[in-house]
């Protein structure tokens, strides 16, 4: 390796000198290339943090004076880019929950295998193949989609003012969530209601529970539905810090907001993609341009806008698809679904999806007079389509207005 690695700084905080001595001695084995600082209390640790750029704090919970959890809160407030691993000989689910909600990267129980700890540290400090930085204007749902697409096993900490929530992913699926006293789907939907805030993505070593088994797309659709009902109508507005986006994930994403992320190897960058996105929308003058936002989603091959009467208004379609005929049939299908909803007292229709062996067809009302028809392959990301429908329905209705 020609490039000289920057030495990472670790601060060990424990009131037991033996523990500090042991950790200091063992962590630097196995070529971790770290500089180690120590502190015997939370207060002392804050002094060290103030005068050194510490990358990672490894702290005990039970200490005289400031506890490890108090220290964690201080670190997260004053040094938000510093990672924290909590150690304790007295594990409890409440401690663990509090630590994770407060932004702890990991929660490790004493006695622990030093190799395991070294691995956690190595993983935490790894940044040679990920991006770190700030992505303004990114939506929580978008980040969840990214994790789903990349089959990530990670936890996402979501903070909005005093509200905190954690979403656990296991190979891309949302498997658990906690928010205040809530757990499972209830917690997930509560987190999705947060209006903006801060996101931290981090790895976890121990899944506390598996309380959610709905697919990511279904969760997002349901969350969007609940937000519609509640009149929130937002799915974006987050500032995403420390979200690790590796090359593969970025390549998989089709959202324009994420394009451009995959163009460098540096680690510190800022994007103002939210504003760019708004400008792009302003510039979308033709219906085709807006429809192309859907065909950019991998697996979506056709996007049509048809009048409620079934006459085609505009379309982007792969060869061999008779869009005029799609319009006529979609009008019937949409009308039939809508009539059924009316008959059953279900109110206004927001979307209809028909699943076939080779993929789904999604129908969504656009304004009062048109229907958006999306034809997709079976592997297409339905959540992404759903999100884009929500995002662009107004724009399409406006552009299509006769």
């Amino acid at each position: 390796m020609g490039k000289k690695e920057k030495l990472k700084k670790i601060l060990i905080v424990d009131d037991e000198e033996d523990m500090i001595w042991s950790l200091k001695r063992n962590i630097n084995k196995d070529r971790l290339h770290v500089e180690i600082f120590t502190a015997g209390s939370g207060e002392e640790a804050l002094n060290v943090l103030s005068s050194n750029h510490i990358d990672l704090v490894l702290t005990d919970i039970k200490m005289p004076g400031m506890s490890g959890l108090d220290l964690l809160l201080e670190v997260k407030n004053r040094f938000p880019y510093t990672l924290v691993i909590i150690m304790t000989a007295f594990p409890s689910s409440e401690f663990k929950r509090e630590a994770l909600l407060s932004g702890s990267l990991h929660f490790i129980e004493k006695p622990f295998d030093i190799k395991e700890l070294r691995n956690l540290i190595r993983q935490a400090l790894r940044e040679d193949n990920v991006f770190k930085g700030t992505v303004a204007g990114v939506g929580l749902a978008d980040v969840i989609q990214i994790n789903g697409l990349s089959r990530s096993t990670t936890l996402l900490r979501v903070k909005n003012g005093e509200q905190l929530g954690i979403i656990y992913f296991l190979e891309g699926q949302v498997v658990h969530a906690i928010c205040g006293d809530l757990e499972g789907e209830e917690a997930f939907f509560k987190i999705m209601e947060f209006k903006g805030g801060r996101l931290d993505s981090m790895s976890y070593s121990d899944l506390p529970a598996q309380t959610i088994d709905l697919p990511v797309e279904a969760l997002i659709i349901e969350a969007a539905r609940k937000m519609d009902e509640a009149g929130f109508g937002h799915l974006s507005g987050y500032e995403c810090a420390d979200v690790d986006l590796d090359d593969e994930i970025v390549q998989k994403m089709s959202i324009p907001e994420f394009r451009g992320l995959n163009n460098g190897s540096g680690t510190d960058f800022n994007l103002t993609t939210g504003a760019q996105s708004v400008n792009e929308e302003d510039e979308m003058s033709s219906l085709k341009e807006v429809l192309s936002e859907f065909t950019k989603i991998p697996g979506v091959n056709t996007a049509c806008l048809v009048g409620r009467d079934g006459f085609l208004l505009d379309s982007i379609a792969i060869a061999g698809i008779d869009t005029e005929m799609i319009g006529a049939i979609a009008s019937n299908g949409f009308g039939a679904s809508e009539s059924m909803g009316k008959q059953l007292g279900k109110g206004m229709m927001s979307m209809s999806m028909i699943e076939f062996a080779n993929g789904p067809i999604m129908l969504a009302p656009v304004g009062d007079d048109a229907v958006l028809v999306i034809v997709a392959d079976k592997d297409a990301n339905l959540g992404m389509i759903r999100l884009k429908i929500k995002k662009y329905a107004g724009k399409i209705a406006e552009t299509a207005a006769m």
Partner: protein
Amino acid sequence: MSEGRILDIAHISFLDMIKVMITMSGAASAKGALIRNAINTAEKIKEVDYATFDDFLQAIENSTNPITQVEGKATHQGEFVFGLANCPFGPSIKNYMGVFEKLPEGYADFTEEFNKPSKVTEVYRVGEGAGVSPFCSVHQPMRSAIAEKILIGGKKIKIYQLGCKAGSGKKGLADRWIAETGVAREVVDKTLDNHMCCYYLKIID
């Protein structure tokens, strides 16, 4: 039951089918289906080129004009405004009313739907207030689509639906098309005094 009250089964089936379509898929979808059918029928008409406008009028008189073959004889009121004395659906509507004394439910909604601005009514220059019954959504686009098969002196023609009159005598005027053609509203109104349907023919230069 007197002969005048014998039900036209084909017609009532058609009416009921429209009602089912409205219930099943909504008025907009039903409207689209009827208009598509009408346009598809018009597509089957052979193209014809009349040397002059007088030849076009003579073909109406002779009942050889494709439009006349579908709706009966219209009368030229001057300045390319035509009046159609009888609605082609009139006898069927009368027959239905004779038996059931009122039109099926949902027809007013359907008519309202037809009159709403939409791409297809814009393309065929129909509706926009000129619809007075669900049958207008078949008749008016069909006439406009047939007109696309007719040339006068090698030039294409376009038809604008200016107004229509229901069996009750209530008139429906398409202000949008009246404004676009420049025909005086009074002319349309007066034409509808003695006719059921009023349209304008434009020869495209």
